[in-house]
Protein backbone atom coordinates (compact mmCIF):
# COMPACT_ATOMS: atom_id res chain seq x y z
CA UNK A 1 0.00 0.00 0.00
CA UNK A 2 1.30 3.45 -0.97
CA UNK A 3 -0.31 6.61 0.31
CA UNK A 4 0.48 10.30 0.18
CA UNK A 5 -1.05 12.87 2.48
CA UNK A 6 -1.65 15.67 0.01
CA UNK A 7 -2.14 18.16 2.82
CA UNK A 8 1.42 17.53 3.99
CA UNK A 9 3.06 17.09 0.56
CA UNK A 10 4.97 20.20 -0.56
CA UNK A 11 5.51 18.87 -4.11
CA UNK A 12 9.29 18.95 -3.85
CA UNK A 13 10.05 15.75 -5.74
CA UNK A 14 12.58 14.29 -3.28
CA UNK A 15 10.67 10.98 -3.50
CA UNK A 16 10.83 10.97 -7.30
CA UNK A 17 14.62 11.18 -7.25
CA UNK A 18 15.06 7.93 -5.31
CA UNK A 19 12.28 5.83 -6.85
CA UNK A 20 14.09 3.11 -8.82
CA UNK A 21 11.03 2.28 -10.90
CA UNK A 22 9.71 5.65 -12.13
CA UNK A 23 6.56 4.98 -10.14
CA UNK A 24 6.46 8.62 -9.06
CA UNK A 25 6.39 11.79 -11.12
CA UNK A 26 6.12 15.39 -10.06
CA UNK A 27 3.73 17.15 -12.38
CA UNK A 28 2.82 20.81 -12.24
CA UNK A 29 -0.40 19.93 -10.45
CA UNK A 30 1.15 17.54 -7.92
CA UNK A 31 2.65 14.15 -7.31
CA UNK A 32 1.52 11.36 -9.65
CA UNK A 33 1.69 7.75 -8.51
CA UNK A 34 1.89 4.88 -11.02
CA UNK A 35 0.63 1.99 -8.96
CA UNK A 36 1.55 -0.67 -11.49
CA UNK A 37 5.24 0.25 -11.25
CA UNK A 38 5.49 0.46 -7.45
CA UNK A 39 7.24 -2.38 -5.59
CA UNK A 40 6.52 -0.91 -2.13
CA UNK A 41 10.25 -0.66 -1.41
CA UNK A 42 9.67 2.35 0.84
CA UNK A 43 12.58 4.56 -0.27
CA UNK A 44 10.19 7.43 -1.00
CA UNK A 45 8.83 7.29 2.53
CA UNK A 46 12.34 7.46 3.97
CA UNK A 47 13.43 10.49 1.95
CA UNK A 48 10.26 12.59 2.31
CA UNK A 49 11.24 15.73 4.26
CA UNK A 50 7.77 16.17 5.74
CA UNK A 51 6.59 12.60 6.33
CA UNK A 52 3.82 12.82 3.77
CA UNK A 53 4.29 9.31 2.31
CA UNK A 54 3.36 6.02 3.94
CA UNK A 55 4.22 2.64 2.44
CA UNK A 56 3.13 -0.72 3.80
CA UNK A 57 4.41 -3.83 2.12
CA UNK A 58 1.90 -6.29 0.85
CA UNK A 59 -1.19 -4.41 1.98
CA UNK A 60 -3.65 -3.15 -0.53
Amino acid at each position, binding site marked *: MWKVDRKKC*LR*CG*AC*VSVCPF*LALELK*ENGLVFHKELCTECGLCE*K*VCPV*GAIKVKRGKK
Partner: protein
Amino acid sequence: MNKEYDVVVVGAGPGGSAVAKRCAERGLKVIMLEKRQEIGSPKRCAEGLTFSTEKIIGKIPERCIAQKINGTNVYSPSGKSVKVDFGEYGGYILERKVFDKWLAIRASRAGAHVQAKTEVVDVIKEDGYIKGVKAEFEGEEFEIRAKVVVAADGVESTIARKAGLNTTNQLINIDSGFQYEMSNLNLKDPEKIEIFMGNEVAPRGYIWIFPKGKDLANVGIGVAMSQKTARYYLDKFIEDNPEIFKDAGIIEVNSGGIPVGGFLKNMVANGLVVVGDAAHQVNPIHGGGLKEATIAGQIAGEVIAKAVKKGDVSEDSLSEYNKIWWKERGRALEKVQKLREVVEKLSDDDLNMLAETLTGDDLIEFSRGNKLFNLGKILLKNPKLITLAKKLI
Protein backbone atom coordinates in the same frame (compact mmCIF):
# COMPACT_ATOMS: atom_id res chain seq x y z
CA MET B 1 4.59 27.87 -31.62
CA ASN B 2 7.36 26.70 -33.92
CA LYS B 3 7.98 23.03 -33.35
CA GLU B 4 11.39 22.38 -34.90
CA TYR B 5 14.45 23.36 -32.91
CA ASP B 6 18.12 22.51 -32.61
CA VAL B 7 17.82 22.18 -28.84
CA VAL B 8 14.95 21.77 -26.40
CA VAL B 9 15.84 22.41 -22.78
CA VAL B 10 13.52 20.84 -20.21
CA GLY B 11 13.51 22.94 -17.04
CA ALA B 12 14.31 26.62 -16.54
CA GLY B 13 16.46 26.49 -13.41
CA PRO B 14 20.05 27.75 -13.33
CA GLY B 15 21.33 24.72 -15.28
CA GLY B 16 18.69 24.94 -17.99
CA SER B 17 19.12 28.69 -18.42
CA ALA B 18 22.91 28.30 -18.68
CA VAL B 19 22.59 25.72 -21.48
CA ALA B 20 19.88 27.69 -23.28
CA LYS B 21 21.86 30.92 -23.16
CA ARG B 22 25.10 29.34 -24.34
CA CYS B 23 23.45 27.42 -27.19
CA ALA B 24 21.57 30.54 -28.33
CA GLU B 25 24.80 32.57 -28.24
CA ARG B 26 26.40 29.96 -30.46
CA GLY B 27 23.66 30.49 -33.02
CA LEU B 28 21.46 27.50 -32.31
CA LYS B 29 17.69 27.58 -32.36
CA VAL B 30 16.70 26.88 -28.75
CA ILE B 31 13.51 26.47 -26.75
CA MET B 32 13.45 26.18 -22.95
CA LEU B 33 10.32 24.79 -21.31
CA GLU B 34 9.32 25.17 -17.68
CA LYS B 35 6.43 23.20 -16.23
CA ARG B 36 5.76 25.69 -13.43
CA GLN B 37 3.70 28.77 -14.01
CA GLU B 38 6.44 30.94 -12.58
CA ILE B 39 10.15 30.40 -13.19
CA GLY B 40 12.05 30.30 -9.88
CA SER B 41 9.08 29.35 -7.75
CA PRO B 42 8.83 27.48 -5.49
CA LYS B 43 12.49 27.59 -4.59
CA ARG B 44 14.17 24.61 -3.02
CA CYS B 45 17.38 26.15 -1.94
CA ALA B 46 19.19 28.05 0.78
CA GLU B 47 19.91 30.80 -1.77
CA GLY B 48 23.55 31.37 -0.82
CA LEU B 49 26.25 32.08 -3.37
CA THR B 50 29.88 33.09 -3.03
CA PHE B 51 30.97 36.26 -4.75
CA SER B 52 33.50 34.31 -6.84
CA THR B 53 30.60 32.65 -8.66
CA GLU B 54 30.14 35.93 -10.53
CA LYS B 55 33.23 34.97 -12.51
CA ILE B 56 31.15 32.16 -13.96
CA ILE B 57 27.65 33.66 -14.05
CA GLY B 58 28.50 37.31 -14.69
CA LYS B 59 27.60 40.41 -12.68
CA ILE B 60 24.47 39.71 -10.66
CA PRO B 61 22.01 42.64 -10.56
CA GLU B 62 21.31 44.20 -7.15
CA ARG B 63 17.64 43.26 -7.38
CA CYS B 64 18.58 39.56 -7.13
CA ILE B 65 20.50 40.06 -3.88
CA ALA B 66 18.65 40.02 -0.57
CA GLN B 67 21.67 40.34 1.70
CA LYS B 68 25.44 40.65 1.40
CA ILE B 69 27.44 38.36 3.65
CA ASN B 70 30.94 38.75 5.11
CA GLY B 71 31.38 35.42 6.84
CA THR B 72 30.02 32.23 8.33
CA ASN B 73 29.94 30.81 11.84
CA VAL B 74 29.95 27.04 11.92
CA TYR B 75 28.82 25.72 15.31
CA SER B 76 29.86 22.34 16.67
CA PRO B 77 27.45 20.43 18.95
CA SER B 78 29.09 21.99 22.05
CA GLY B 79 28.41 25.46 20.66
CA LYS B 80 32.01 26.25 19.80
CA SER B 81 32.12 28.13 16.50
CA VAL B 82 34.61 28.10 13.68
CA LYS B 83 34.60 31.45 11.94
CA VAL B 84 34.92 31.57 8.18
CA ASP B 85 35.87 35.03 7.01
CA PHE B 86 34.74 35.95 3.48
CA GLY B 87 36.54 39.28 3.53
CA GLU B 88 34.32 42.22 2.77
CA TYR B 89 31.05 40.81 1.41
CA GLY B 90 32.39 37.63 -0.13
CA GLY B 91 28.96 36.12 -0.37
CA TYR B 92 25.35 36.82 -1.23
CA ILE B 93 22.02 35.54 -0.13
CA LEU B 94 19.92 35.70 -3.25
CA GLU B 95 16.27 36.24 -3.87
CA ARG B 96 16.03 33.03 -5.89
CA LYS B 97 12.71 33.85 -7.49
CA VAL B 98 14.17 37.04 -8.91
CA PHE B 99 17.53 35.47 -9.68
CA ASP B 100 16.17 32.47 -11.59
CA LYS B 101 13.98 34.76 -13.65
CA TRP B 102 16.96 36.97 -14.42
CA LEU B 103 18.87 33.91 -15.68
CA ALA B 104 15.94 32.95 -17.90
CA ILE B 105 15.61 36.53 -19.15
CA ARG B 106 19.27 36.47 -20.17
CA ALA B 107 18.72 33.21 -22.05
CA SER B 108 15.73 34.79 -23.74
CA ARG B 109 17.68 37.92 -24.70
CA ALA B 110 20.41 35.70 -26.14
CA GLY B 111 17.73 34.37 -28.49
CA ALA B 112 16.34 31.30 -26.73
CA HIS B 113 12.58 30.87 -26.82
CA VAL B 114 11.41 30.58 -23.19
CA GLN B 115 8.01 29.15 -22.28
CA ALA B 116 6.65 28.71 -18.74
CA LYS B 117 3.70 26.51 -17.77
CA THR B 118 4.57 24.00 -20.45
CA GLU B 119 5.07 20.51 -19.15
CA VAL B 120 7.15 17.89 -20.88
CA VAL B 121 5.45 14.52 -20.53
CA ASP B 122 7.72 12.27 -22.57
CA VAL B 123 10.60 12.08 -25.01
CA ILE B 124 10.36 11.18 -28.68
CA LYS B 125 12.61 8.22 -29.44
CA GLU B 126 13.36 7.12 -33.00
CA ASP B 127 16.12 4.92 -34.41
CA GLY B 128 17.97 4.88 -31.09
CA TYR B 129 18.03 8.66 -30.87
CA ILE B 130 16.09 11.13 -28.75
CA LYS B 131 14.45 13.34 -31.34
CA GLY B 132 12.46 15.75 -29.20
CA VAL B 133 9.76 15.85 -26.55
CA LYS B 134 6.04 15.55 -26.08
CA ALA B 135 4.78 18.54 -24.15
CA GLU B 136 1.54 19.86 -22.78
CA PHE B 137 0.31 23.44 -22.83
CA GLU B 138 -3.15 24.36 -21.56
CA GLY B 139 -4.24 20.76 -21.71
CA GLU B 140 -3.14 20.24 -25.29
CA GLU B 141 -0.37 17.82 -26.14
CA PHE B 142 2.03 18.59 -28.95
CA GLU B 143 5.45 17.51 -30.17
CA ILE B 144 8.59 19.56 -30.29
CA ARG B 145 11.29 18.08 -32.47
CA ALA B 146 14.92 18.86 -31.71
CA LYS B 147 18.37 17.54 -32.47
CA VAL B 148 19.28 17.54 -28.79
CA VAL B 149 17.11 17.32 -25.66
CA VAL B 150 18.61 18.72 -22.46
CA ALA B 151 17.24 17.20 -19.25
CA ALA B 152 17.59 20.04 -16.75
CA ASP B 153 14.46 18.96 -14.95
CA GLY B 154 15.82 19.10 -11.45
CA VAL B 155 16.02 16.64 -8.61
CA GLU B 156 12.69 15.11 -9.66
CA SER B 157 14.09 14.45 -13.14
CA THR B 158 12.36 11.77 -15.14
CA ILE B 159 13.28 12.90 -18.66
CA ALA B 160 16.69 11.23 -18.71
CA ARG B 161 15.22 8.04 -17.31
CA LYS B 162 12.41 8.06 -19.85
CA ALA B 163 15.11 8.42 -22.49
CA GLY B 164 16.78 5.28 -21.16
CA LEU B 165 19.61 6.75 -19.10
CA ASN B 166 19.48 5.54 -15.51
CA THR B 167 19.97 8.60 -13.33
CA THR B 168 18.11 7.33 -10.25
CA ASN B 169 20.03 8.36 -7.16
CA GLN B 170 20.60 6.15 -4.14
CA LEU B 171 18.88 7.08 -0.90
CA ILE B 172 22.29 7.40 0.73
CA ASN B 173 23.15 10.20 -1.70
CA ILE B 174 19.99 12.26 -1.20
CA ASP B 175 19.52 14.65 1.69
CA SER B 176 16.03 15.56 2.81
CA GLY B 177 15.75 19.33 2.92
CA PHE B 178 13.18 21.52 4.62
CA GLN B 179 13.16 25.27 5.03
CA TYR B 180 11.20 28.27 6.19
CA GLU B 181 11.54 31.83 5.14
CA MET B 182 11.16 33.65 8.45
CA SER B 183 10.47 37.18 9.61
CA ASN B 184 10.86 39.17 12.82
CA LEU B 185 13.89 37.14 13.85
CA ASN B 186 16.39 38.19 16.44
CA LEU B 187 19.53 37.74 14.33
CA LYS B 188 22.89 38.26 16.00
CA ASP B 189 24.55 39.52 12.85
CA PRO B 190 22.58 39.78 9.58
CA GLU B 191 25.83 39.83 7.63
CA LYS B 192 26.81 36.36 8.77
CA ILE B 193 25.58 32.92 7.81
CA GLU B 194 25.16 30.52 10.71
CA ILE B 195 25.58 26.76 10.39
CA PHE B 196 24.75 24.29 13.17
CA MET B 197 26.10 20.74 13.15
CA GLY B 198 25.54 17.76 15.40
CA ASN B 199 23.88 14.38 15.47
CA GLU B 200 21.10 15.62 17.73
CA VAL B 201 20.48 18.83 15.82
CA ALA B 202 20.74 17.57 12.25
CA PRO B 203 21.81 13.95 11.80
CA ARG B 204 24.27 13.65 8.92
CA GLY B 205 23.67 17.23 7.88
CA TYR B 206 23.29 20.73 9.16
CA ILE B 207 20.90 23.53 9.97
CA TRP B 208 21.42 26.88 8.29
CA ILE B 209 20.38 30.46 8.95
CA PHE B 210 20.91 32.53 5.83
CA PRO B 211 19.96 36.16 6.53
CA LYS B 212 17.87 37.96 3.94
CA GLY B 213 17.66 41.24 5.81
CA LYS B 214 17.95 42.69 9.31
CA ASP B 215 15.34 40.33 10.80
CA LEU B 216 14.63 38.03 7.87
CA ALA B 217 16.25 34.71 6.98
CA ASN B 218 16.05 31.52 5.03
CA VAL B 219 16.20 28.94 7.84
CA GLY B 220 16.56 25.35 6.82
CA ILE B 221 17.93 21.89 7.29
CA GLY B 222 19.38 19.04 5.28
CA VAL B 223 19.51 15.60 6.88
CA ALA B 224 19.82 12.04 5.65
CA MET B 225 18.93 8.53 6.73
CA SER B 226 17.47 10.09 9.87
CA GLN B 227 14.99 8.52 12.26
CA LYS B 228 12.63 11.46 12.03
CA THR B 229 11.73 13.84 9.21
CA ALA B 230 13.74 16.92 8.23
CA ARG B 231 10.77 19.01 9.28
CA TYR B 232 10.81 17.50 12.78
CA TYR B 233 14.45 18.43 13.38
CA LEU B 234 14.03 21.99 12.11
CA ASP B 235 10.92 22.61 14.20
CA LYS B 236 12.75 21.25 17.24
CA PHE B 237 15.72 23.54 16.64
CA ILE B 238 13.42 26.54 16.37
CA GLU B 239 11.69 25.58 19.60
CA ASP B 240 15.03 25.08 21.36
CA ASN B 241 16.37 28.49 20.35
CA PRO B 242 13.78 31.04 21.50
CA GLU B 243 16.44 33.79 21.69
CA ILE B 244 16.37 33.82 17.88
CA PHE B 245 12.90 32.56 17.03
CA LYS B 246 10.57 33.54 19.88
CA ASP B 247 8.50 36.07 17.90
CA ALA B 248 9.30 34.84 14.41
CA GLY B 249 6.82 34.54 11.60
CA ILE B 250 6.87 31.93 8.86
CA ILE B 251 6.35 33.58 5.50
CA GLU B 252 7.17 30.63 3.26
CA VAL B 253 7.52 26.85 3.57
CA ASN B 254 9.56 24.69 1.20
CA SER B 255 11.06 21.24 1.06
CA GLY B 256 13.35 19.42 -1.31
CA GLY B 257 15.64 16.53 -2.05
CA ILE B 258 19.30 17.49 -2.29
CA PRO B 259 21.66 15.25 -4.27
CA VAL B 260 24.88 14.96 -2.24
CA GLY B 261 26.81 12.47 -4.33
CA GLY B 262 26.41 9.70 -6.85
CA PHE B 263 28.03 11.51 -9.76
CA LEU B 264 27.26 9.97 -13.11
CA LYS B 265 30.07 8.65 -15.29
CA ASN B 266 27.78 9.06 -18.26
CA MET B 267 25.40 12.00 -18.61
CA VAL B 268 24.62 11.70 -22.33
CA ALA B 269 22.82 9.47 -24.82
CA ASN B 270 22.14 9.84 -28.54
CA GLY B 271 20.47 13.26 -28.70
CA LEU B 272 20.33 13.73 -24.91
CA VAL B 273 22.33 15.64 -22.28
CA VAL B 274 21.62 15.84 -18.53
CA VAL B 275 22.64 18.84 -16.38
CA GLY B 276 22.25 20.20 -12.86
CA ASP B 277 20.39 18.46 -10.03
CA ALA B 278 19.08 15.98 -12.62
CA ALA B 279 22.72 14.85 -13.02
CA HIS B 280 23.39 15.14 -9.23
CA GLN B 281 25.77 18.05 -9.86
CA VAL B 282 25.81 19.46 -6.34
CA ASN B 283 28.60 20.03 -3.85
CA PRO B 284 28.12 17.09 -1.45
CA ILE B 285 29.39 18.82 1.69
CA HIS B 286 27.27 21.96 1.65
CA GLY B 287 24.58 20.94 -0.82
CA GLY B 288 25.00 24.00 -3.04
CA GLY B 289 24.11 23.35 -6.65
CA LEU B 290 23.71 26.78 -8.26
CA LYS B 291 27.32 27.16 -9.24
CA GLU B 292 27.69 23.53 -10.30
CA ALA B 293 24.59 23.63 -12.50
CA THR B 294 25.83 26.80 -14.16
CA ILE B 295 29.30 25.45 -14.90
CA ALA B 296 27.88 22.19 -16.23
CA GLY B 297 25.29 24.08 -18.28
CA GLN B 298 27.97 26.17 -19.92
CA ILE B 299 30.12 23.14 -20.71
CA ALA B 300 27.08 21.30 -22.08
CA GLY B 301 26.11 24.33 -24.17
CA GLU B 302 29.51 24.45 -25.87
CA VAL B 303 29.56 20.73 -26.55
CA ILE B 304 26.00 20.73 -27.92
CA ALA B 305 26.72 23.70 -30.20
CA LYS B 306 29.76 21.92 -31.61
CA ALA B 307 27.89 18.64 -32.04
CA VAL B 308 24.90 20.25 -33.79
CA LYS B 309 27.15 22.20 -36.14
CA LYS B 310 29.06 19.12 -37.23
CA GLY B 311 25.79 17.21 -37.58
CA ASP B 312 26.71 14.50 -35.09
CA VAL B 313 24.65 14.37 -31.89
CA SER B 314 25.48 10.75 -31.08
CA GLU B 315 26.35 9.65 -27.56
CA ASP B 316 29.95 9.45 -28.67
CA SER B 317 30.01 13.03 -29.90
CA LEU B 318 28.15 14.43 -26.86
CA SER B 319 30.33 12.49 -24.44
CA GLU B 320 32.84 15.32 -24.79
CA TYR B 321 30.65 16.86 -22.06
CA ASN B 322 31.35 13.90 -19.74
CA LYS B 323 35.04 14.27 -20.36
CA ILE B 324 35.24 18.02 -19.72
CA TRP B 325 32.89 17.99 -16.73
CA TRP B 326 34.74 15.18 -15.01
CA LYS B 327 38.06 16.90 -15.55
CA GLU B 328 36.87 20.33 -14.41
CA ARG B 329 34.36 19.42 -11.66
CA GLY B 330 33.76 15.70 -11.25
CA ARG B 331 37.10 14.74 -9.80
CA ALA B 332 37.05 17.51 -7.19
CA LEU B 333 33.41 16.85 -6.28
CA GLU B 334 34.09 13.15 -5.87
CA LYS B 335 36.70 14.05 -3.24
CA VAL B 336 34.13 16.24 -1.52
CA GLN B 337 31.75 13.29 -1.53
CA LYS B 338 34.41 11.27 0.32
CA LEU B 339 34.72 14.11 2.81
CA ARG B 340 30.95 14.03 3.33
CA GLU B 341 31.03 10.26 3.87
CA VAL B 342 33.65 10.76 6.58
CA VAL B 343 32.04 13.77 8.27
CA GLU B 344 28.63 12.10 8.49
CA LYS B 345 30.12 9.25 10.52
CA LEU B 346 31.73 11.51 13.11
CA SER B 347 30.30 11.62 16.62
CA ASP B 348 29.46 14.85 18.37
CA ASP B 349 32.71 14.51 20.35
CA ASP B 350 34.69 14.22 17.11
CA LEU B 351 32.95 17.31 15.71
CA ASN B 352 33.72 19.23 18.92
CA MET B 353 37.35 18.19 18.69
CA LEU B 354 37.54 19.39 15.07
CA ALA B 355 35.95 22.72 16.00
CA GLU B 356 38.82 23.23 18.45
CA THR B 357 41.44 22.38 15.85
CA LEU B 358 40.28 23.69 12.47
CA THR B 359 40.21 27.21 11.11
CA GLY B 360 37.74 28.84 8.75
CA ASP B 361 40.27 28.66 5.92
CA ASP B 362 40.57 24.90 6.49
CA LEU B 363 36.80 24.56 6.06
CA ILE B 364 36.84 26.52 2.80
CA GLU B 365 39.66 24.37 1.39
CA PHE B 366 37.97 21.12 2.46
CA SER B 367 34.66 22.15 0.90
CA ARG B 368 36.47 22.50 -2.41
CA GLY B 369 38.02 19.06 -2.09
CA ASN B 370 41.47 20.47 -1.30
CA LYS B 371 43.88 19.52 1.50
CA LEU B 372 41.72 16.65 2.74
CA PHE B 373 44.96 14.94 3.67
CA ASN B 374 45.31 17.44 6.53
CA LEU B 375 41.91 16.48 7.92
CA GLY B 376 42.87 12.81 7.62
CA LYS B 377 46.00 13.46 9.68
CA ILE B 378 44.00 15.10 12.47
CA LEU B 379 41.51 12.21 12.56
CA LEU B 380 44.38 9.70 12.73
CA LYS B 381 45.19 10.95 16.22
CA ASN B 382 42.06 9.19 17.45
CA PRO B 383 42.62 5.42 17.09
CA LYS B 384 38.88 4.87 16.66
CA LEU B 385 38.89 7.01 13.54
CA ILE B 386 41.74 5.34 11.66
CA THR B 387 39.50 3.67 9.09
CA LEU B 388 37.72 6.94 8.38
CA ALA B 389 40.95 8.91 8.27
CA LYS B 390 42.37 6.51 5.68
CA LYS B 391 39.56 7.46 3.30
CA LEU B 392 41.04 10.93 3.12
CA ILE B 393 44.71 10.03 2.92
